């Protein structure tokens, strides 16, 4: 068992990782911020992140001062609680993987727990509205879904905030959980969070991460399988504008046999110093026979001055797998493409929209939530309109 368990909490059911899952990171995951050195920016896990824009979240100088409103709207049968860190569910999905999210774990005061009891099939989503009012906050959210229950949870981030947070998903055996996290922040917000899913036996987890806003957004979706038969689908969509830093760092820890993961992240970038980072780490451990995994990242650069770093990593410790692969490609919407479309009578804005809608369309359809699809397409159109 790990040494850094918060007083009174338990790690029963948690996965103890004996060595850093990725040997290149500077410290093993831990609940305690003191286990992580203050990053200087050259570490593998920090090398893309402009530390000076983290507003002290990384070096202990950022003090919580509130200014974050969280409203949960839940259908009948769902329990919403505010608990102390001593609650057994807090920290159960897994440990924070870097200094900022460990800081969040060490610093949050109260955690919010949303519980969907076993066998309950929700027809309406649980909505969690996180609205920043300009302050600095450390958050902790747990979403627990019981065996064979089914739910969609939508987490919406708006306003301005400096937020470091952990979100945990505890997914019971045979349950189905879809979580949509929309980062629709004002362009001044800083948001660093780890989303850790502990997927039960034969459970299905679908994560949809949508990042439009923020000055700096850095998210770590992580998947850990508690038992065989788990299935995780991770979709992501980002639209990075001038000056924005949007970083998505995924880690899927296949340490359990016969689990499946499928990752598709797509991003469009426009404007000077728009910077998107996508890291996809998949580890298939020796015990994880029968694993089936695929990850894909596609980027579309719409203007000069934008930059993408896309780094898929696949580490395989057993040959007894069903499939493993990854792909990454970054393309440009260039003058020649624009000329071609315009030479067929299509105006500039329409040409851009055609290309970007086409690029995201397939992904948006895969999400399988019609309300969200419309909202995303409308948002993408708005981003494009704003740019011309």
């Amino acid at each position, binding site marked *: 068992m790990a040494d850094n368990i918060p007083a009174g909490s338990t790690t029963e059911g948690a996965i103890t990782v004996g060595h850093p899952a990725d040997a290149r990171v500077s410290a093993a995951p831990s609940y305690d911020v003191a286990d992580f050195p203050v990053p200087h920016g050259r570490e593998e896990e920090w090398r893309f992140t402009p530390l000076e824009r983290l507003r002290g979240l990384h070096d202990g100088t950022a003090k919580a001062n509130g200014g974050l409103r969280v409203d949960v709207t839940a259908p009948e049968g769902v329990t919403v609680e505010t608990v102390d860190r001593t609650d057994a569910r807090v920290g159960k999905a897994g440990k924070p993987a870097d200094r900022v999210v460990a800081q969040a774990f060490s610093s949050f005061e109260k955690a919010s727990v949303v519980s969907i009891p076993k066998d309950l099939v929700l027809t309406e989503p649980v909505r969690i509205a996180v609205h920043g009012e300009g302050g600095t906050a450390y958050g902790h959210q747990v979403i627990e879904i019981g065996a064979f229950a089914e739910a969609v949870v939508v987490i919406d981030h708006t306003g301005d905030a400096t937020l470091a947070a952990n979100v945990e998903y505890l997914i019971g055996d045979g349950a189905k959980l879809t979580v949509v996290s929309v980062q629709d922040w004002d362009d001044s917000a800083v948001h660093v969070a780890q989303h850790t899913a502990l997927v039960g036996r034969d459970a299905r987890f679908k994560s949809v991460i949508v990042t439009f806003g923020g000055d700096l957004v850095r998210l770590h979706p992580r998947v850990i399988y508690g038992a065989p038969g788990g299935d995780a689908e991770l979709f992501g969509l980002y639209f990075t504008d001038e000056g924005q830093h949007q970083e998505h760092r995924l880690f899927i820890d296949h340490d359990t046999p016969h689990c499946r993961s499928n990752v598709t992240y797509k991003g469009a970038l426009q404007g000077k110093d728009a910077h998107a980072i996508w890291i996809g780490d998949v580890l298939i451990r020796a015990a994880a026979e029968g694993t089936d995994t695929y990850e894909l990242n596609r980027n579309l650069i719409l203007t000069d001055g934008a930059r993408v770093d896309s780094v898929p990593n696949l580490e395989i410790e057993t040959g007894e797998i069903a499939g493993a692969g990854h792909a990454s490609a970054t393309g440009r919407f260039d003058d020649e493409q624009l000329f071609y479309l315009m*030479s067929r009578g299509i105006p500039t804005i329409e040409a851009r929209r055609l290309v970007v809608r*086409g690029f995201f369309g397939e992904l948006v359809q895969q999400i399988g939530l019609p309300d969200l699809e419309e909202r995303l397409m409308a948002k993408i159109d708005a981003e494009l309109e704003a740019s011309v």
Partner: protein
Amino acid sequence: MATLEIHDLHVSVEAENGPREILRGVDLTVKQGETHAIMGPNGSGKSTLAYSVAGHPKYTITSGTVTLDGEDILAMTVDERARAGLFLAMQYPVEVPGVSVSNFLRTSATAIRGEAPKLRTWVKEVKSAMEQLQMDPAFAERNVNEGFSGGEKKRHEILQLELLKPKIAILDETDSGLDVDALRQVSEGVNRVRETGEVGTLLITHYTRILRYIKPDFVHVFSNGRIAESGGAELADKLENEGYEAYSTKGGASA
């Protein structure tokens, strides 16, 4: 009757050591229903003429005029030129990832016609145009030019020509890289459009081969950035026999 008039057109491109003049005074009039072949050696400026008229940003018009039915084409954006009735079938059409052929064609037809074509008649129209060009229906679901063979790209260009029904069509080396069967099918597509009598065609080619399928009314020999000689179809036969040697640029200074 639609008329494209090019008068004393001078065009430069930005080169390493400053602007370089490629077109040096082109005069040409193409009327609806006519077919003009522009022939000439590599680097004589044939393609530059095509792209300058279409409005490619790489080319700078330094002097001269281009009008379509009296309207100043050069003052228009690229998409306005297309909506005014100009069409350029490109030699190397670019890939547009994420955009399916069917979506592209419909968006384009909507822009050119000023309203979205009625879905039922549109589907029929596209289907029959594709059949005539011997294109697999599955083609419509592929992304524009992505992974297309040379022949598929050219068929796709001519498919657009048939659907968009321009007043003036410029075909830039549509014959290059095609085998005989593909050349015949593509030429038949061009001829179907020509037979309507509603299009003026400017056929740019290096070889006389395509002229066996598409009979020009006028042939112009391009050399050193201008039209060196004009004549009827018989001029093509002369070129077939004698080549471009009589027109070749001394010292190879031209682009």
